[in-house]
Protein backbone atom coordinates (compact mmCIF):
# COMPACT_ATOMS: atom_id res chain seq x y z
CA UNK A 1 0.00 0.00 0.00
CA UNK A 2 1.27 3.44 -0.92
CA UNK A 3 3.18 5.48 1.64
CA UNK A 4 1.94 9.00 0.91
CA UNK A 5 4.03 10.89 3.44
CA UNK A 6 5.57 14.09 2.16
CA UNK A 7 6.69 17.48 3.43
CA UNK A 8 4.80 20.74 3.22
CA UNK A 9 7.43 21.88 0.69
CA UNK A 10 6.63 18.80 -1.42
CA UNK A 11 2.96 19.81 -1.37
CA UNK A 12 3.62 23.38 -2.43
CA UNK A 13 6.05 22.23 -5.17
CA UNK A 14 3.07 20.46 -6.78
CA UNK A 15 0.99 23.62 -6.87
CA UNK A 16 1.29 26.25 -9.58
CA UNK A 17 0.29 29.87 -9.88
CA UNK A 18 -3.24 30.42 -11.09
CA UNK A 19 -4.56 27.20 -9.56
CA UNK A 20 -7.92 26.88 -7.80
CA UNK A 21 -7.26 25.69 -4.26
CA UNK A 22 -9.84 24.63 -1.69
CA UNK A 23 -8.93 25.08 1.97
CA UNK A 24 -10.76 23.00 4.59
CA UNK A 25 -11.75 23.84 8.15
CA UNK A 26 -14.19 26.58 9.04
CA UNK A 27 -13.56 30.18 10.11
CA UNK A 28 -10.73 30.01 12.61
CA UNK A 29 -11.14 26.28 13.20
CA UNK A 30 -8.86 23.38 12.11
CA UNK A 31 -7.33 25.25 9.18
CA UNK A 32 -4.29 23.70 7.40
CA UNK A 33 -2.19 26.65 8.52
CA UNK A 34 1.21 24.95 8.14
CA UNK A 35 0.39 24.36 4.46
CA UNK A 36 -0.93 27.90 4.11
CA UNK A 37 2.27 29.25 5.64
CA UNK A 38 4.26 27.18 3.14
CA UNK A 39 2.33 28.92 0.35
CA UNK A 40 3.29 32.26 1.93
CA UNK A 41 6.96 31.22 1.62
CA UNK A 42 6.55 30.25 -2.06
CA UNK A 43 6.38 32.33 -5.22
CA UNK A 44 2.84 31.07 -5.97
CA UNK A 45 0.43 33.82 -7.00
CA UNK A 46 -2.90 34.50 -8.72
CA UNK A 47 -4.60 31.77 -6.73
CA UNK A 48 -8.33 31.21 -6.70
CA UNK A 49 -9.17 30.17 -3.15
CA UNK A 50 -12.38 28.36 -2.24
CA UNK A 51 -13.17 28.24 1.47
CA UNK A 52 -15.27 28.91 4.54
CA UNK A 53 -12.75 31.62 5.33
CA UNK A 54 -10.69 32.37 8.38
CA UNK A 55 -7.12 33.61 8.89
CA UNK A 56 -6.01 31.47 5.95
CA UNK A 57 -7.75 34.03 3.74
CA UNK A 58 -6.39 37.00 5.70
CA UNK A 59 -2.80 35.77 5.52
CA UNK A 60 -3.00 34.93 1.83
CA UNK A 61 -4.60 38.32 1.11
CA UNK A 62 -1.93 40.15 3.09
CA UNK A 63 0.75 38.32 1.08
CA UNK A 64 -0.94 39.18 -2.22
CA UNK A 65 -1.43 35.51 -3.16
CA UNK A 66 -5.15 35.62 -3.95
CA UNK A 67 -6.58 36.80 -7.24
CA UNK A 68 -10.08 35.49 -6.64
CA UNK A 69 -11.87 34.35 -3.49
CA UNK A 70 -14.84 31.98 -3.64
CA UNK A 71 -16.44 32.21 -0.21
CA UNK A 72 -19.51 32.44 1.99
CA UNK A 73 -17.89 34.41 4.81
CA UNK A 74 -14.53 35.26 6.32
CA UNK A 75 -14.44 35.30 10.11
CA UNK A 76 -12.03 34.69 12.97
CA UNK A 77 -14.97 33.48 15.15
CA UNK A 78 -13.94 35.14 18.42
CA UNK A 79 -13.07 38.23 16.35
CA UNK A 80 -15.97 38.69 13.97
CA UNK A 81 -14.08 40.04 10.94
CA UNK A 82 -10.58 39.42 9.55
CA UNK A 83 -8.97 42.86 9.08
CA UNK A 84 -6.50 41.64 6.43
CA UNK A 85 -9.29 40.30 4.25
CA UNK A 86 -11.27 43.51 4.78
CA UNK A 87 -8.28 45.62 3.77
CA UNK A 88 -7.85 43.61 0.55
CA UNK A 89 -11.54 43.95 -0.30
CA UNK A 90 -11.69 47.63 0.56
CA UNK A 91 -8.65 48.24 -1.64
CA UNK A 92 -10.34 46.39 -4.51
CA UNK A 93 -7.32 44.06 -4.52
CA UNK A 94 -9.22 40.78 -4.97
CA UNK A 95 -12.10 39.52 -7.05
CA UNK A 96 -14.84 37.70 -5.15
CA UNK A 97 -17.44 35.07 -5.89
CA UNK A 98 -19.74 35.13 -2.89
CA UNK A 99 -22.14 32.26 -2.23
CA UNK A 100 -24.53 31.34 0.53
CA UNK A 101 -22.60 28.86 2.70
CA UNK A 102 -24.98 26.05 1.74
CA UNK A 103 -24.41 26.84 -1.94
CA UNK A 104 -20.67 26.51 -1.37
CA UNK A 105 -21.21 23.08 0.15
CA UNK A 106 -23.43 22.15 -2.79
CA UNK A 107 -20.78 23.32 -5.29
CA UNK A 108 -18.10 21.17 -3.68
CA UNK A 109 -20.50 18.22 -3.48
CA UNK A 110 -21.55 18.60 -7.13
CA UNK A 111 -17.87 18.60 -8.15
CA UNK A 112 -17.21 15.53 -6.00
CA UNK A 113 -20.17 13.66 -7.49
CA UNK A 114 -19.30 14.82 -11.01
CA UNK A 115 -22.72 16.34 -11.49
CA UNK A 116 -23.43 19.37 -13.70
CA UNK A 117 -25.23 21.10 -10.83
CA UNK A 118 -27.21 20.56 -7.65
CA UNK A 119 -30.53 22.31 -7.10
CA UNK A 120 -31.17 24.62 -4.17
CA UNK A 121 -33.49 27.42 -3.07
CA UNK A 122 -30.55 29.27 -1.48
CA UNK A 123 -29.62 32.36 -3.44
CA UNK A 124 -33.08 33.02 -4.92
CA UNK A 125 -34.18 36.60 -4.33
CA UNK A 126 -30.77 37.65 -2.98
CA UNK A 127 -27.94 39.64 -4.53
CA UNK A 128 -25.86 36.46 -4.66
CA UNK A 129 -27.58 36.00 -8.03
CA UNK A 130 -27.11 39.67 -8.97
CA UNK A 131 -23.35 39.58 -8.38
CA UNK A 132 -22.88 36.12 -9.89
CA UNK A 133 -24.54 36.45 -13.31
CA UNK A 134 -23.07 33.07 -14.30
CA UNK A 135 -25.58 31.39 -11.98
CA UNK A 136 -28.66 29.92 -13.63
CA UNK A 137 -31.99 28.74 -12.32
CA UNK A 138 -33.56 25.49 -13.43
CA UNK A 139 -37.18 24.45 -13.83
CA UNK A 140 -38.20 21.39 -11.83
CA UNK A 141 -38.79 18.71 -14.51
CA UNK A 142 -41.48 17.28 -12.22
CA UNK A 143 -43.48 20.50 -12.12
CA UNK A 144 -42.36 22.02 -8.83
CA UNK A 145 -40.52 25.24 -8.11
CA UNK A 146 -37.80 26.80 -10.21
CA UNK A 147 -34.57 26.76 -8.18
CA UNK A 148 -30.89 27.69 -8.45
CA UNK A 149 -28.68 25.24 -10.35
CA UNK A 150 -25.51 25.43 -8.27
CA UNK A 151 -22.57 24.58 -10.55
CA UNK A 152 -19.70 22.35 -9.41
CA UNK A 153 -16.71 23.98 -7.72
CA UNK A 154 -13.83 22.00 -9.24
CA UNK A 155 -10.59 22.31 -7.32
CA UNK A 156 -7.08 21.78 -8.68
CA UNK A 157 -6.01 21.03 -5.14
CA UNK A 158 -7.48 20.70 -1.68
CA UNK A 159 -5.62 21.42 1.57
CA UNK A 160 -7.00 20.10 4.86
CA UNK A 161 -5.74 19.50 8.40
CA UNK A 162 -6.89 16.58 10.55
CA UNK A 163 -6.09 15.43 14.07
CA UNK A 164 -4.69 12.04 13.05
CA UNK A 165 -3.88 10.13 9.88
CA UNK A 166 -2.06 7.04 8.71
CA UNK A 167 0.69 7.02 6.07
CA UNK A 168 -1.79 5.90 3.42
CA UNK A 169 -4.02 8.94 3.65
CA UNK A 170 -6.81 7.85 5.99
CA UNK A 171 -7.62 10.89 8.09
CA UNK A 172 -9.38 11.27 11.42
CA UNK A 173 -11.12 14.16 13.17
CA UNK A 174 -11.27 13.96 16.97
CA UNK A 175 -12.95 17.32 17.55
CA UNK A 176 -16.66 18.10 17.47
CA UNK A 177 -17.08 18.75 13.74
CA UNK A 178 -15.68 17.21 10.56
CA UNK A 179 -16.53 20.48 8.79
CA UNK A 180 -16.57 19.90 5.01
CA UNK A 181 -13.05 18.55 4.58
CA UNK A 182 -14.10 15.34 2.82
CA UNK A 183 -16.05 17.37 0.26
CA UNK A 184 -12.98 19.50 -0.53
CA UNK A 185 -11.00 16.30 -1.13
CA UNK A 186 -13.73 14.83 -3.35
CA UNK A 187 -13.89 18.03 -5.39
CA UNK A 188 -10.12 18.15 -5.99
CA UNK A 189 -7.71 16.71 -8.56
CA UNK A 190 -5.13 16.41 -5.79
CA UNK A 191 -5.82 16.49 -2.07
CA UNK A 192 -3.20 17.13 0.58
CA UNK A 193 -3.82 16.43 4.23
CA UNK A 194 -1.68 17.67 7.07
CA UNK A 195 -2.27 16.22 10.51
CA UNK A 196 -1.11 16.55 14.09
CA UNK A 197 0.23 13.02 14.20
CA UNK A 198 0.65 10.05 11.89
CA UNK A 199 -0.24 6.73 13.52
CA UNK A 200 -0.39 3.08 12.44
CA UNK A 201 -3.87 2.48 10.96
CA UNK A 202 -5.01 0.16 13.75
CA UNK A 203 -4.25 2.75 16.39
CA UNK A 204 -6.65 5.25 14.84
CA UNK A 205 -9.64 3.23 15.96
CA UNK A 206 -8.18 1.81 19.17
CA UNK A 207 -10.01 4.42 21.23
CA UNK A 208 -12.21 6.21 18.69
CA UNK A 209 -15.26 5.20 16.69
CA UNK A 210 -14.53 4.39 13.02
CA UNK A 211 -16.97 7.18 12.08
CA UNK A 212 -14.19 9.60 13.01
CA UNK A 213 -12.23 8.34 9.96
CA UNK A 214 -13.89 10.93 7.76
CA UNK A 215 -11.13 11.13 5.15
CA UNK A 216 -10.65 8.05 3.01
CA UNK A 217 -7.23 7.33 1.48
CA UNK A 218 -8.71 7.01 -2.02
CA UNK A 219 -9.31 10.76 -1.89
CA UNK A 220 -5.83 11.73 -0.69
CA UNK A 221 -2.64 12.42 -2.66
CA UNK A 222 -0.25 13.27 0.14
CA UNK A 223 0.00 13.27 3.95
CA UNK A 224 2.09 15.74 5.94
CA UNK A 225 2.79 15.34 9.64
CA UNK A 226 2.57 18.89 10.98
CA UNK A 227 2.33 19.11 14.78
CA UNK A 228 0.60 22.33 15.84
CA UNK A 229 -0.07 22.66 12.12
CA UNK A 230 -3.45 24.36 12.57
CA UNK A 231 -2.02 27.03 14.88
CA UNK A 232 -3.39 29.62 15.65
CA UNK A 233 -6.79 28.18 14.70
CA UNK A 234 -8.40 25.55 16.92
CA UNK A 235 -7.66 21.85 16.58
CA UNK A 236 -9.62 20.36 19.45
CA UNK A 237 -9.03 18.16 21.37
CA UNK A 238 -5.31 18.61 20.61
CA UNK A 239 -5.44 22.34 21.30
CA UNK A 240 -7.82 25.29 21.35
CA UNK A 241 -7.53 28.43 19.28
CA UNK A 242 -4.59 30.59 20.40
CA UNK A 243 -6.78 33.61 21.13
CA UNK A 244 -3.92 35.73 22.31
CA UNK A 245 -1.92 35.10 19.16
CA UNK A 246 -5.01 35.67 17.01
CA UNK A 247 -5.49 39.07 18.66
CA UNK A 248 -1.87 39.90 17.81
CA UNK A 249 -2.45 38.78 14.19
CA UNK A 250 -5.59 40.90 13.87
CA UNK A 251 -4.11 43.88 15.68
CA UNK A 252 -1.06 43.87 13.38
CA UNK A 253 -3.35 44.82 10.50
CA UNK A 254 -3.73 48.27 12.03
CA UNK A 255 -0.66 49.73 10.32
CA UNK A 256 2.06 48.60 7.89
CA UNK A 257 4.82 48.84 10.51
CA UNK A 258 3.00 46.55 12.92
CA UNK A 259 2.37 44.08 10.12
CA UNK A 260 6.02 44.18 9.06
CA UNK A 261 7.02 43.45 12.65
CA UNK A 262 4.58 40.53 12.78
CA UNK A 263 5.94 39.15 9.52
CA UNK A 264 9.55 39.54 10.64
CA UNK A 265 8.88 37.76 13.87
CA UNK A 266 6.69 34.90 12.68
CA UNK A 267 6.59 34.55 8.92
CA UNK A 268 10.15 35.26 7.71
CA UNK A 269 11.58 31.81 8.34
CA UNK A 270 10.70 28.13 8.08
CA UNK A 271 7.81 26.33 9.78
CA UNK A 272 10.26 25.28 12.51
CA UNK A 273 11.16 28.94 12.97
CA UNK A 274 7.45 29.81 13.18
CA UNK A 275 6.81 27.18 15.82
CA UNK A 276 9.88 28.30 17.76
CA UNK A 277 8.70 31.93 17.65
CA UNK A 278 5.25 30.86 18.86
CA UNK A 279 6.81 28.85 21.69
CA UNK A 280 9.05 31.78 22.64
CA UNK A 281 6.06 34.11 22.64
CA UNK A 282 4.20 31.69 24.87
CA UNK A 283 7.12 31.72 27.35
CA UNK A 284 7.19 35.54 27.35
CA UNK A 285 3.47 35.74 28.00
CA UNK A 286 3.58 33.27 30.88
CA UNK A 287 6.81 34.72 32.37
Amino acid at each position, binding site marked *: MADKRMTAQDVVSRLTSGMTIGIGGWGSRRKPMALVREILRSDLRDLTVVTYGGPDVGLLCAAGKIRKLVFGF*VSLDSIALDPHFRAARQAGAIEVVEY*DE*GMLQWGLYAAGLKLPFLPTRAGL*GSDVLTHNPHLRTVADPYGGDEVVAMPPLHLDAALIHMNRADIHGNGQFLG*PDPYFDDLYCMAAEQAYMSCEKILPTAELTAAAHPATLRINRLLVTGVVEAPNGAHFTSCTPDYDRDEDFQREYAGAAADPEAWQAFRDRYLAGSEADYQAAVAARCQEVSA
Partner: protein
Amino acid sequence: MTNVMDPRAEASDAVASRAEVCVVACADAFRDSGEMLASAFGTIPAIGVRLARETFSPDLLISDGESYLVRGAWPVGTPATGEVEAWAPFRTIFDLVWHGKRHVMMIPSQVDRYGNTNISAVGDYRRPKVQLLGVRGAPGNTVCHPTSYWVPRHSTRVFVPRVDMVSGVGNDRAAQAGPGASRYHDLRRVVTDLAVFDYHPEHGTLRVASVHPGVTVEQVQAATGFPLEAGDEVPQTRLPSAAELRLIREVLDPRGLRDREVAG
Protein backbone atom coordinates in the same frame (compact mmCIF):
# COMPACT_ATOMS: atom_id res chain seq x y z
CA MET B 1 -58.94 34.25 36.52
CA THR B 2 -55.24 34.80 36.30
CA ASN B 3 -53.12 31.87 35.22
CA VAL B 4 -50.13 32.07 37.52
CA MET B 5 -48.20 29.59 35.38
CA ASP B 6 -48.07 32.09 32.57
CA PRO B 7 -45.16 34.45 33.21
CA ARG B 8 -46.98 37.21 31.31
CA ALA B 9 -49.71 37.23 33.97
CA GLU B 10 -47.43 37.94 36.90
CA ALA B 11 -46.90 41.56 37.75
CA SER B 12 -43.32 42.45 38.48
CA ASP B 13 -42.29 44.89 41.21
CA ALA B 14 -38.66 45.04 40.11
CA VAL B 15 -37.87 47.61 37.43
CA ALA B 16 -36.77 45.96 34.21
CA SER B 17 -33.87 47.45 32.28
CA ARG B 18 -34.12 48.16 28.55
CA ALA B 19 -31.90 45.13 27.91
CA GLU B 20 -34.31 42.93 29.89
CA VAL B 21 -37.28 44.23 27.92
CA CYS B 22 -35.35 43.33 24.77
CA VAL B 23 -34.64 39.84 26.13
CA VAL B 24 -38.34 39.06 26.61
CA ALA B 25 -39.17 40.61 23.22
CA CYS B 26 -36.65 38.23 21.62
CA ALA B 27 -38.04 35.34 23.68
CA ASP B 28 -41.58 36.18 22.53
CA ALA B 29 -40.47 35.84 18.90
CA PHE B 30 -40.00 32.12 19.69
CA ARG B 31 -43.39 31.67 21.38
CA ASP B 32 -45.51 28.76 20.16
CA SER B 33 -42.69 27.43 18.00
CA GLY B 34 -42.99 23.80 19.07
CA GLU B 35 -40.01 21.56 18.28
CA MET B 36 -37.81 23.88 16.35
CA LEU B 37 -34.10 24.66 16.26
CA ALA B 38 -33.75 28.17 17.72
CA SER B 39 -30.55 29.82 16.50
CA ALA B 40 -29.76 33.17 18.03
CA PHE B 41 -26.92 35.55 17.24
CA GLY B 42 -25.99 38.19 19.80
CA THR B 43 -26.10 38.18 23.58
CA ILE B 44 -29.68 39.32 24.13
CA PRO B 45 -31.23 36.88 21.61
CA ALA B 46 -29.12 34.08 23.14
CA ILE B 47 -30.61 34.89 26.56
CA GLY B 48 -34.03 35.24 24.89
CA VAL B 49 -34.17 31.76 23.35
CA ARG B 50 -33.03 30.16 26.59
CA LEU B 51 -35.64 32.14 28.49
CA ALA B 52 -38.32 31.04 26.00
CA ARG B 53 -37.32 27.41 26.49
CA GLU B 54 -37.29 27.71 30.27
CA THR B 55 -40.80 29.18 30.26
CA PHE B 56 -43.33 29.07 27.43
CA SER B 57 -41.54 27.20 24.60
CA PRO B 58 -40.08 24.14 26.34
CA ASP B 59 -39.64 22.14 23.13
CA LEU B 60 -37.09 24.44 21.47
CA LEU B 61 -33.73 22.95 20.48
CA ILE B 62 -30.64 25.04 21.14
CA SER B 63 -27.04 24.67 19.98
CA ASP B 64 -23.98 25.11 22.17
CA GLY B 65 -22.51 27.29 19.42
CA GLU B 66 -20.19 24.50 18.35
CA SER B 67 -21.53 21.10 17.31
CA TYR B 68 -24.05 19.89 19.86
CA LEU B 69 -27.66 20.54 20.70
CA VAL B 70 -27.84 20.91 24.46
CA ARG B 71 -30.69 20.93 26.98
CA GLY B 72 -30.95 23.07 30.07
CA ALA B 73 -30.24 26.69 30.89
CA TRP B 74 -26.68 27.92 31.20
CA PRO B 75 -25.36 31.49 31.44
CA VAL B 76 -24.50 33.31 28.21
CA GLY B 77 -20.79 33.65 27.63
CA THR B 78 -20.02 30.34 29.34
CA PRO B 79 -19.69 26.81 27.91
CA ALA B 80 -22.91 24.79 27.74
CA THR B 81 -23.41 22.49 30.70
CA GLY B 82 -26.69 20.67 29.98
CA GLU B 83 -27.32 17.23 28.54
CA VAL B 84 -26.26 16.78 24.94
CA GLU B 85 -29.29 15.64 22.96
CA ALA B 86 -27.89 15.71 19.43
CA TRP B 87 -24.72 15.92 17.41
CA ALA B 88 -25.20 18.81 15.02
CA PRO B 89 -22.04 19.65 13.09
CA PHE B 90 -22.34 22.36 10.47
CA ARG B 91 -23.52 20.03 7.74
CA THR B 92 -26.37 18.79 9.94
CA ILE B 93 -27.29 22.41 10.63
CA PHE B 94 -27.25 23.06 6.88
CA ASP B 95 -29.62 20.13 6.38
CA LEU B 96 -31.95 21.48 9.07
CA VAL B 97 -31.88 24.94 7.49
CA TRP B 98 -33.15 23.61 4.20
CA HIS B 99 -35.50 21.19 5.97
CA GLY B 100 -37.12 24.22 7.58
CA LYS B 101 -37.62 23.43 11.28
CA ARG B 102 -35.38 26.28 12.33
CA HIS B 103 -36.00 29.85 13.38
CA VAL B 104 -32.95 32.08 13.23
CA MET B 105 -32.47 35.52 14.73
CA MET B 106 -29.63 37.27 12.90
CA ILE B 107 -27.98 40.67 13.36
CA PRO B 108 -28.15 42.66 10.12
CA SER B 109 -25.87 45.61 9.34
CA GLN B 110 -28.58 47.10 7.12
CA VAL B 111 -32.36 46.53 6.91
CA ASP B 112 -34.84 48.05 4.47
CA ARG B 113 -38.61 48.47 4.78
CA TYR B 114 -39.35 45.06 3.22
CA GLY B 115 -36.94 43.25 5.53
CA ASN B 116 -34.13 42.84 3.03
CA THR B 117 -30.91 42.68 5.05
CA ASN B 118 -27.20 43.08 4.41
CA ILE B 119 -24.33 41.37 6.23
CA SER B 120 -21.97 41.28 3.25
CA ALA B 121 -20.55 44.66 2.25
CA VAL B 122 -21.40 48.35 2.38
CA GLY B 123 -20.77 50.55 -0.65
CA ASP B 124 -19.69 49.53 -4.15
CA TYR B 125 -19.64 45.75 -4.18
CA ARG B 126 -16.44 45.51 -6.23
CA ARG B 127 -14.59 47.75 -3.83
CA PRO B 128 -16.67 48.09 -0.66
CA LYS B 129 -16.35 51.00 1.67
CA VAL B 130 -16.86 48.51 4.51
CA GLN B 131 -16.37 44.79 4.03
CA LEU B 132 -18.52 42.82 6.47
CA LEU B 133 -18.79 39.11 7.19
CA GLY B 134 -20.14 37.83 3.88
CA VAL B 135 -23.65 36.54 3.22
CA ARG B 136 -23.03 33.38 5.33
CA GLY B 137 -26.32 31.45 5.43
CA ALA B 138 -28.64 34.43 5.11
CA PRO B 139 -29.84 33.79 1.52
CA GLY B 140 -30.72 30.16 2.32
CA ASN B 141 -32.07 30.83 5.80
CA THR B 142 -34.56 33.42 4.61
CA VAL B 143 -36.05 31.33 1.79
CA CYS B 144 -36.17 28.10 3.82
CA HIS B 145 -37.35 28.82 7.36
CA PRO B 146 -38.61 31.50 9.77
CA THR B 147 -36.22 34.41 10.21
CA SER B 148 -36.16 37.26 12.71
CA TYR B 149 -33.65 40.01 13.29
CA TRP B 150 -32.02 41.69 16.26
CA VAL B 151 -30.72 45.25 16.00
CA PRO B 152 -28.92 46.31 19.19
CA ARG B 153 -28.65 49.96 18.07
CA HIS B 154 -31.61 51.21 16.12
CA SER B 155 -30.45 54.00 13.79
CA THR B 156 -30.77 55.39 10.29
CA ARG B 157 -27.41 53.72 9.55
CA VAL B 158 -29.05 50.33 9.98
CA PHE B 159 -32.60 51.09 8.84
CA VAL B 160 -31.89 52.33 5.32
CA PRO B 161 -34.10 52.95 2.27
CA ARG B 162 -32.08 50.42 0.28
CA VAL B 163 -29.55 47.84 1.47
CA ASP B 164 -26.30 47.66 -0.49
CA MET B 165 -26.15 43.86 -0.86
CA VAL B 166 -29.29 41.79 -0.30
CA SER B 167 -28.04 38.90 1.82
CA GLY B 168 -31.25 38.05 3.68
CA VAL B 169 -34.24 38.11 1.33
CA GLY B 170 -37.07 40.56 2.11
CA ASN B 171 -40.78 40.23 1.38
CA ASP B 172 -40.72 42.12 -1.92
CA ARG B 173 -37.72 40.27 -3.32
CA ALA B 174 -39.08 36.87 -2.26
CA ALA B 175 -42.38 37.60 -4.03
CA GLN B 176 -40.61 38.82 -7.18
CA ALA B 177 -38.35 35.76 -7.28
CA GLY B 178 -41.32 33.40 -7.44
CA PRO B 179 -42.46 30.31 -5.53
CA GLY B 180 -38.94 28.84 -5.31
CA ALA B 181 -38.09 31.74 -3.01
CA SER B 182 -41.45 32.55 -1.46
CA ARG B 183 -42.88 29.10 -0.63
CA TYR B 184 -41.07 28.81 2.73
CA HIS B 185 -40.11 32.46 3.13
CA ASP B 186 -41.33 33.59 6.57
CA LEU B 187 -40.02 36.82 8.10
CA ARG B 188 -41.28 37.07 11.68
CA ARG B 189 -40.03 39.91 13.89
CA VAL B 190 -37.42 42.59 14.13
CA VAL B 191 -36.47 43.43 17.70
CA THR B 192 -34.38 46.54 18.35
CA ASP B 193 -33.32 48.51 21.41
CA LEU B 194 -36.29 50.82 20.74
CA ALA B 195 -39.16 48.69 19.51
CA VAL B 196 -40.54 45.45 18.12
CA PHE B 197 -41.66 45.14 14.49
CA ASP B 198 -43.66 42.72 12.46
CA TYR B 199 -44.69 43.09 8.81
CA HIS B 200 -47.88 44.47 7.34
CA PRO B 201 -49.78 41.38 6.11
CA GLU B 202 -50.57 42.88 2.69
CA HIS B 203 -47.78 45.38 2.05
CA GLY B 204 -45.00 43.21 3.46
CA THR B 205 -43.48 46.32 5.01
CA LEU B 206 -42.10 46.79 8.52
CA ARG B 207 -44.75 47.76 11.03
CA VAL B 208 -44.26 48.92 14.60
CA ALA B 209 -45.76 46.19 16.76
CA SER B 210 -44.76 47.76 20.08
CA VAL B 211 -42.44 50.39 21.49
CA HIS B 212 -40.32 49.78 24.56
CA PRO B 213 -41.24 51.65 27.76
CA GLY B 214 -40.13 55.27 27.51
CA VAL B 215 -39.91 55.24 23.69
CA THR B 216 -42.37 56.98 21.36
CA VAL B 217 -43.32 56.00 17.83
CA GLU B 218 -41.95 59.37 16.71
CA GLN B 219 -38.55 58.52 18.15
CA VAL B 220 -38.57 55.19 16.37
CA GLN B 221 -39.54 56.84 13.09
CA ALA B 222 -36.78 59.46 13.51
CA ALA B 223 -34.20 56.67 13.88
CA THR B 224 -35.48 54.91 10.76
CA GLY B 225 -34.50 55.84 7.21
CA PHE B 226 -37.87 55.00 5.63
CA PRO B 227 -41.55 55.45 6.52
CA LEU B 228 -42.80 52.89 9.03
CA GLU B 229 -46.27 51.39 9.21
CA ALA B 230 -47.84 52.06 12.60
CA GLY B 231 -51.39 51.82 13.89
CA ASP B 232 -53.09 54.64 15.80
CA GLU B 233 -52.58 52.87 19.10
CA VAL B 234 -49.14 51.25 19.25
CA PRO B 235 -48.87 49.22 22.45
CA GLN B 236 -45.94 49.17 24.80
CA THR B 237 -43.63 46.14 24.66
CA ARG B 238 -44.58 43.91 27.56
CA LEU B 239 -42.48 43.97 30.69
CA PRO B 240 -40.71 40.89 31.99
CA SER B 241 -42.51 39.06 34.77
CA ALA B 242 -40.86 38.60 38.15
CA ALA B 243 -40.13 34.98 37.27
CA GLU B 244 -38.56 36.00 33.97
CA LEU B 245 -36.44 38.67 35.63
CA ARG B 246 -35.21 36.14 38.15
CA LEU B 247 -34.26 33.72 35.38
CA ILE B 248 -32.46 36.42 33.42
CA ARG B 249 -30.60 37.85 36.38
CA GLU B 250 -29.78 34.73 38.34
CA VAL B 251 -29.56 31.93 35.81
CA LEU B 252 -29.15 33.08 32.20
CA ASP B 253 -27.00 36.19 32.57
CA PRO B 254 -25.66 36.61 36.11
CA ARG B 255 -22.65 38.56 34.78
CA GLY B 256 -24.90 41.17 33.14
CA LEU B 257 -23.49 40.79 29.62
CA ARG B 258 -26.85 42.02 28.30
CA ASP B 259 -26.06 45.52 29.55
CA ARG B 260 -23.01 45.65 27.28
CA GLU B 261 -25.26 45.12 24.27
CA VAL B 262 -28.03 47.52 25.30
CA ALA B 263 -27.49 50.12 28.02
CA GLY B 264 -30.09 51.84 30.22
